[in-house]
C-alpha cells in the first residue's frame, strides 16, 4: 500500500508529486498516457499570469499570485525555460479603459506587484507593432512566458529522482473505499493507497464521480492557436492581451519562451478528446489578433493546435478534501491553472497533512537539475561540450539546432521519453519550421537504439500514433 496516489500527470499532478517527494512518503502518480504533460498542460497559451484577472477572494486569485512567484524560483532551480517579460492589456475605447482600471483595482487587491496603467505613447514605445488605435493599457511586469510541458516534466523528473514512483500507461477505471484507504482499479494491476488525489484535468469529474456524489460536470472549452516561425517571434516584446468582452476573453499575441510567436485562443464548446482545429476557429483567431497587432505574417505559420479548458459550472478551482475522507481533488483547473499549479501543490501537501498524512522531510532530497541546451552556449562552451562528448557535435534537428548529445541525455534522465514528441518536449527537436520532417526519422532511430526497442514501435506521440506500417520491398538503406 502506498501513502498517496495521484491520478493525472498534468502540471497539477506533477507539481504535487514534486512537492511530496521532499518527504519520506510513498507516492505514486498514475497517468493513462505514455508520458506526462500530454493533456491540457501541453496545449495552452503558456503564460505565467500576473493575477489581476481573477475576482479577489477566489482560489484562482490566491493561487495565481502565489504561483507566479513560486514559478520564478522553481524555473531557476530546475532549469525550466521561463522569461519574465511582462504583459499588457490593451484598451481600445472608453469602456475598455474603464475595464483596465477595474483590472488594476482587482490586481492590486489580489496583491499583484508593480501594476501600472500606461498611456498610448508609453505603449507604442514599448511595442511599436501594436495597433495605433490603442488608448491605454494595463502593464503587469510580473507576467511571464514558460515552457509549460517542461514545468511538468522537470518536476516529475526531480520527483522520480527522489524516489517517487511514476506509472505511465496506467488508466484509472474505478476507485473503491477499503479499510484504511482505497483500491484503485486500472487497466493493469490495482493500486492500494491511503490517500488519493484526483488531478485528472478534463476527466476530473469522471474520477470524482467514482467515489463522490455528482456535484460538478466538466464541459470542455476548446481554444485554437497559431504558432509562427521565429521570424515573427520578435513582433511583440510582451504578452499582448485584449480586454475581456462579450466575445470572450480576447485573443493574445505573445512571444513564446522558445522564440516563436503564439496567437490565440478562441473559445468554443467541445467534446472531451476533441483537439481538432477548424477553419472558422482559425479565422476568428486571425481576425481578433489583428485588432491588437495588425501585421502578423501568417505565411510564417508553422503549426496550429488546440487545448481543452476544464470548465465546470463553478467559476473557480475546486480544491480540497472531498465528501470522502482521504480522497482529495485538484479539479476544474482552467486558466490560470498552469501558473497556479505549483502553489496549489504546496497547499495540497498541507491539506494532506491536516488529513492525517505524516510528513518528515528527507535529508537527502536533491532538487538540482541542469539541462545542456547546446544552442544557448557560447562558441567556446560549444567547443568544450563537443570535446567532452562528440555527440554534441552532431546536429539532429537543423531548424532548432538540437544535437544528438541532448537527445541521448534526455533518453537517460529519470523519466525518459519513448516517443518522437516526448523527445521534442524535452529537447525542442522538431519544433521548428520543418516540423520534424527531416529529424523525425533520426530521432526515431536514436530512441530505438538507446532504449533497445524496434524502430517501428516508436510512436509519434501517444500509444497508437504509429508512423511506420512495414518495410519496403527492398528494405533498409539502399
Amino acid at each position: 500500500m502506498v501513502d498517496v496516489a495521484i491520478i493525472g500527470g498534468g502540471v497539477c499532478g506533477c507539481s504535487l508529486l514534486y512537492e511530496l517527494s521532499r518527504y519520506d512518503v510513498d507516492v505514486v502518480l498514475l497517468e493513462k498516457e505514455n508520458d506526462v504533460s500530454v493533456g491540457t498542460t501541453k496545449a495552452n497559451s503558456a503564460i505565467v499570469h500576473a493575477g489581476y484577472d481573477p475576482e479577489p477572494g477566489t482560489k484562482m486569485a490566491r493561487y495565481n499570485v502565489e504561483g507566479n512567484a513560486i514559478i520564478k524560483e522553481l524555473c531557476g532551480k530546475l532549469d525550466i525555460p521561463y522569461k519574465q517579460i511582462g504583459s499588457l492589456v490593451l484598451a481600445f475605447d472608453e469602456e475598455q479603459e474603464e475595464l483596465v482600471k477595474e483590472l488594476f483595482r482587482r490586481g492590486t487587491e489580489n496583491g499583484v506587484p508593480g501594476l501600472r496603467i500606461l498611456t498610448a505613447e508609453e505603449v507604442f514605445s514599448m511595442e511599436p507593432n501594436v495597433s495605433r488605435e490603442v488608448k491605454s493599457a494595463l502593464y503587469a511586469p510580473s507576467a511571464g512566458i514558460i515552457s509549460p510541458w517542461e514545468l511538468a516534466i522537470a518536476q516529475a523528473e526531480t520527483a522520480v529522482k527522489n524516489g517517487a514512483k511514476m506509472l505511465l500507461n496506467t488508466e484509472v477505471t474505478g476507485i473503491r473505499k477499503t479499510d484504511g484507504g482505497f483500491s484503485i482499479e486500472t487497466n493493469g494491476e490495482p493500486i492500494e493507497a491511503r490517500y488519493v488525489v484526483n488531478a485528472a484535468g478534463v476527466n476530473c469529474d469522471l474520477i470524482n464521480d467514482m467515489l463522490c456524489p455528482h456535484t460538478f460536470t466538466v464541459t470542455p472549452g476548446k481554444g485554437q492557436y497559431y504558432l509562427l516561425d521565429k521570424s515573427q517571434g520578435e513582433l511583440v516584446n510582451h504578452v499582448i492581451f485584449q480586454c475581456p468582452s462579450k466575445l470572450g476573453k480576447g485573443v493574445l499575441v505573445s512571444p513564446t519562451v522558445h522564440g516563436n510567436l503564439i496567437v490565440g485562443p478562441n473559445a468554443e464548446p467541445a467534446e472531451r478528446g476533441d483537439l481538432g482545429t477548424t477553419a472558422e476557429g482559425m479565422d476568428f483567431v486571425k481576425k481578433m489578433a489583428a485588432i491588437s497587432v495588425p501585421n502578423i505574417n501568417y505565411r510564417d505559420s508553422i503549426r496550429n493546435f488546440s487545448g481543452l479548458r476544464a470548465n465546470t459550472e463553478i467559476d473557480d478551482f475546486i480544491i480540497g478534501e472531498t465528501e470522502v475522507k482521504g480522497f482529495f481533488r485538484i479539479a476544474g483547473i482552467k486558466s490560470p491553472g498552469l501558473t497556479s499549479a505549483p502553489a496549489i501543490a504546496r497547499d495540497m501537501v498541507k491539506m494532506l497533512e491536516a488529513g492525517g498524512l505524516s510528513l518528515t522531510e528527507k535529508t537527502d532530497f536533491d532538487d538540482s537539475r541542469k539541462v545542456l541546451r547546446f544552442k544557448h552556449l557560447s562558441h567556446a562552451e560549444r567547443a568544450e561540450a563537443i570535446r567532452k562528448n562528440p555527440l554534441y557535435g552532431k546536429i539532429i534537428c537543423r531548424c532548432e539546432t538540437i544535437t544528438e548529445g541532448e537527445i541521448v541525455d534526455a533518453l537517460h534522465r529519470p523519466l525518459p521519453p519513448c516517443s518522437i514528441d516526448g523527445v521534442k518536449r524535452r529537447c525542442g527537436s522538431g519544433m521548428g519550421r520543418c516540423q520534424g520532417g527531416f529529424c523525425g526519422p533520426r530521432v526515431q532511430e536514436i530512441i530505438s537504439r538507446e532504449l533497445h526497442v524496434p524502430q517501428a514501435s516508436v510512436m509519434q506521440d501517444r500509444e497508437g500514433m504509429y508512423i511506420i506500417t512495414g518495410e519496403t520491398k527492398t528494405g533498409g538503406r539502399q
Partner: protein
Amino acid sequence: METLYDVIVVGGGPAGLAAALEANKSGAQKVLILERNRELGGILNQCIHNGFGLHYFKEELTGPEYAGRFIEQLKDTGIEVMLDTMVLEVSPDKTVHAMNSQNGYMQLKGKAIVLNMGCRERTRGAIAIPGDRPAGIFTAGAAQLYMNVEGYMVGKRVLILGSGDIGLIMARRMTLEGAKVLGCVELMPYSNGLNRNIVQCLNDYDIPLYLSHTITDIRGDKRVEQVVVSKVDENRRPIPGTEMVFDCDTVLLSVGLIPENELSRQSGIEIDRRTNGPVVYENMETSIPGIFASGNVVHVHDLVDFVTAESQRAGKAAALYAQNGEAQGDIFTLENGSCVNYTVPQKVRPSNVEKFVEIFFRVNFVYSNVVIQVSSGGEVLCSFKREHMAPGEMEKIVFPKALFSKIRDGKVTVSVVKEADAK
C-alpha cells in the same frame, strides 16, 4: 588558428558539387565543401527514380547516379569535404562557423563563399489545414526519406495534397510498394508538376487528380482515419456541399518548397520576397560581395540539370573573386512585367557579361500561345513565342549583350503577353 580557403561551399548537394568543381577548374586552390548529412548528393540521395540528367548528360539517370558522377569527379581535385558538418553561421566578413563531432566548433575563413543550402518543404502548419492532429501526415519528401533511405513504409491507403513533382513521384512510389493511392488533390485549376510526371505517375496507375479541390478536414484520434476533400471556387474557397470523404491512414503533402535561407538572412544578404532566395547578379553573386548562391537556395528548380549549370556559373565567379576581388561596373535591374512571378538574376552588370545573359523565370498561371517580351523604356528589345507556359515549369530565355545598348534608365522588364497583343 583560422585556415584561409579560396572558396568555401556551404551544402554538398548537386549545387554545391558543381560549384566546388567549377571553382577548382577555374583556378581556386583551396576549396572546401561543408555538408551536414553523412553523405554528399543532397536531396538527390532519396530520389531513386529515373529522370535526372537528360539535359546535362543526355541520358536518364537516378538521383544517386547523377550525384555520383560529380562525387566521382571530386577525386584528384584536392577539394576538401567535411561531412556530418553543420554550418551555423556565415558572417559578412566571410567567416563560416561550422561544427562536427571530430573537429568540434570551427571558424573557417573564405575569400569567397558559395551558398548551396537547397530548400525544405512546406508543412501542414504553413498552410493551416484544419482537423485533428493524428500521426500519418507527412510531407512527401519526409515519406520519401523513410521509404528510400530508411526502407520503411509509412502508410497503406494514401491521399496526396498538392500536385508538385515530389507528390507525383511519391504517388507512383507508394503504389509500386503496394499502397493504395486514392487520389491527388490540387487547390489550383492546374497541376504544379511537370507534365511527364502527371502522365507517368498518375495516369499510368489510374490515380485520379482532383484539380480545384482541397482538404477541408482531417479526422483521426491516433492515426489518420478519414480525410474530407472539397471543391473550391475561383477564390480558392471551399464550396459547401461538395465534400467527399476518403477512408485512408496517410496524407502526403506536396505543397511547395521554401529555399533554406536562414543563414543568408542572418548574414544580412538581401532576399527577394518572391523567390524567397537571395537577390543575385548575373554571376550568382549576392548583395554581399564575394558571397555567391545557386541552386534551390536561390529559386526552386524542377530540373537538376539547371541547378548544375547555374552552380557552375557561381563556382567560376567565386574562383575569380578569390583571385581578382570585387567586380565593378554599371548595373541594370530586371523587373517582373505582366504574368511574370520572378526573374533570376534580378540584377545584371553588363561589364561581367560576355555574349548574353540567361534569364530564368516562372509565370503566375497557365497560358497558351503567348509571347515573352523583354523591354526597356517602352520598347520591346526581343521576344520569344511559346505555345504553352505553366507555373510548374521554369522558363529560360537568352538576352544577348548586343541589345544592352538599348536599355533605358537601367531597367529591363520581362513580361508575357497574348500573341494578339504582342508588339
